[in-house]
């Protein structure tokens, strides 16, 4: 349970809000690089943290992310022409470069300095790991570039997709931290999904549907350990990483790629769910890439021409009651991603946490909320940079390991929980 003011604090991320200020401390994923595939390609509308912007790639290959609306009459620059190193408003021809600087006002006399007085809000865009990242905070507080391993391995080792999720970012994130839902919501998919099946660890999962959870603070967020009995009195641990504020990494299975998410607020009632898949020491196989493209694993099939999932709330997520009844699917919704999204969206645009009845296994969620509240207050009151900005906090891995019964997993798996180039992940 949260008080209303706490729920508001954590869920509101627009300009001028405390949580919005926290998000504006980080580099966040803004677009897939493939959305701006070539110089002078069509611009793309982007809404992040309740700010409407337009992204474009100019004649020289420079990326821009600027206020969507022309300073002149407020026309959307998405209708503009991307030409000659700038985005030109289709209404009266005002033109802006990638920094948001107006460079031409055709109605003014030749040589007029007027254009120089017009500056749209603009944010940087950098390409890393097939993603265009932006930092929406003050330039003087710009952090080092992201160092999440999935974004820094060779391109053939990694693939990332994104989808619109129609609920507030926090309830989507909390689904990623809540390991206890896996044995129910996703039951049935572990042994059939091409990006999950075949791992020895699956047998531990399916042999023990009531794992014991252990939550431990990490430098950048949390480790969430799920413990099951293994051979010889040892424990099989699956350790999820949460890096503040919105990054999670799911423990690996066998030699499958590691996967995880970013949840980025679009506005208070929608977010982007980013889903990555990577392997630290090898290229992804063509089968793995095909599976991602086919919407397997944590990825989805799309409505044509969009990043909205094909299964969505308007079609009841293509619920298959026959599969549910026959036990082929616990939830009746196909695929891990939409199983998660369907239940999270059903909670409403912003779930009312004053009414919820948390239980002890929700301690991961409880601790994450506490860490977020502490970080927001420290940032607002004292200017303290929040956890997760330091690149060392981002160079992490999830892990699945077998450890002796008395060993703290944070210590027993300490090396496995750090991203080390050319070192295989710890996975069972």
């Amino acid at each position: 349970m949260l008080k209303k003011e706490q729920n508001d604090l954590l869920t509101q991320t627009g300009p001028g809000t405390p949580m919005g200020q926290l998000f504006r401390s980080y580099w966040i994923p803004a677009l897939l690089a493939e959305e701006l595939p070539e110089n002078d390609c069509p611009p793309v509308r982007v809404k992040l943290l309740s700010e409407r912007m337009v992204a474009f790639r100019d004649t020289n290959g420079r990326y821009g992310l600027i206020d969507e609306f022309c300073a002149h009459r407020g026309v959307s620059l998405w209708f503009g022409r991307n030409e000659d190193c700038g985005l030109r408003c289709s209404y009266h021809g005002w033109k802006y470069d990638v920094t948001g600087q107006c460079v031409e006002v055709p109605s003014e006399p030749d040589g007029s300095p007027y254009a120089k007085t017009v500056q749209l809000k603009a944010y940087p865009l950098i390409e890393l790991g097939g993603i265009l990242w932006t930092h929406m905070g003050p330039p003087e507080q710009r952090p080092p570039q992201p160092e999440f391993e999935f974004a820094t391995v060779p391109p053939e080792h990694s693939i990332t997709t994104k989808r619109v999720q129609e609920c507030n970012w926090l309830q989507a994130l909390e689904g990623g931290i809540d390991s206890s839902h896996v044995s129910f919501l996703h039951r049935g998919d572990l042994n059939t999904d091409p990006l999950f099946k075949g791992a020895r660890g699956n047998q531990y999962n399916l042999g023990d549907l009531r794992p014991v959870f252990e939550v431990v603070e990490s430098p950048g967020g949390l480790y969430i350990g799920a413990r099951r009995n293994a051979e010889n009195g040892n424990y099989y641990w699956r350790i999820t990483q949460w890096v503040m504020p919105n990054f999670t990494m799911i423990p690996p299975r066998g030699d499958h790629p590691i996967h995880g998410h970013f949840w980025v607020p679009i506005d208070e009632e929608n977010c982007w769910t980013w889903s990555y898949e990577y392997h630290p020491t090898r290229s992804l196989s063509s089968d793995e890439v095909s599976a991602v493209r086919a919407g397997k694993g944590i990825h989805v099939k799309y409505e044509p021409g969009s990043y909205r999932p094909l299964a969505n709330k308007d079609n009841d997520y293509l619920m298959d009651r026959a599969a549910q009844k026959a036990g082929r699917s616990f939830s009746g919704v196909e695929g891990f991603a939409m199983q998660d999204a369907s239940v999270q969206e059903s909670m409403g645009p912003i779930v009312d946490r004053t009414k919820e009845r948390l239980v002890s296994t929700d301690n991961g969620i409880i601790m994450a909320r506490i860490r977020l509240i502490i970080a927001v207050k420290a940032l607002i009151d004292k200017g303290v940079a929040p956890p997760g900005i330091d690149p060392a906090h981002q160079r992490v891995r999830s892990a699945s390991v077998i450890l002796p019964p008395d060993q703290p997993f944070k210590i027993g798996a300490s090396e496995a929980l750090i991203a080390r180039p050319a070192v295989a992940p710890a996975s069972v």
Partner: protein
Amino acid sequence: MNSAAEARFRIQELCSYFPTVKVIALDTPSERVVRRVATGSWEHTTFLTAAAFSGELIDLAGRPRNLTDEVDEADLVVMVATPGGRAHAASIIGEACSRRRVMTTGVVLGGTSAPEAALSKTLLQLRPWSLMVVIADPEDYLDNMLVALRA
């Protein structure tokens, strides 16, 4: 209908349920924390200590309390320990909870930066009897957890 409009028609009813929680300090340092937390305003939560456990729990006024009776009326038992502390009561409390199918949570305060040996010692005592384990540094984690659980 957009998601906000749809959500407006949810039944608005306040939750009046408060679980009965027993918070039990397992060692002397954790008893100090539990005594502080107990000064807060709680609905159905009892604060006890087993720091000097010899078969019975002790309430914070120093009165003996029967373990079985306490567990019988609990929805949740929270065992609080510190790394390297004397958490030997965990097995007896945990077994009583297990017999009555009462949920248990082990909270290790100050565990994030503790030496491995001390933390291992405590985990070895807590893990078999805790269906949820939390290792937290901030001392007020216990307060926040109890609020979140409507304790």
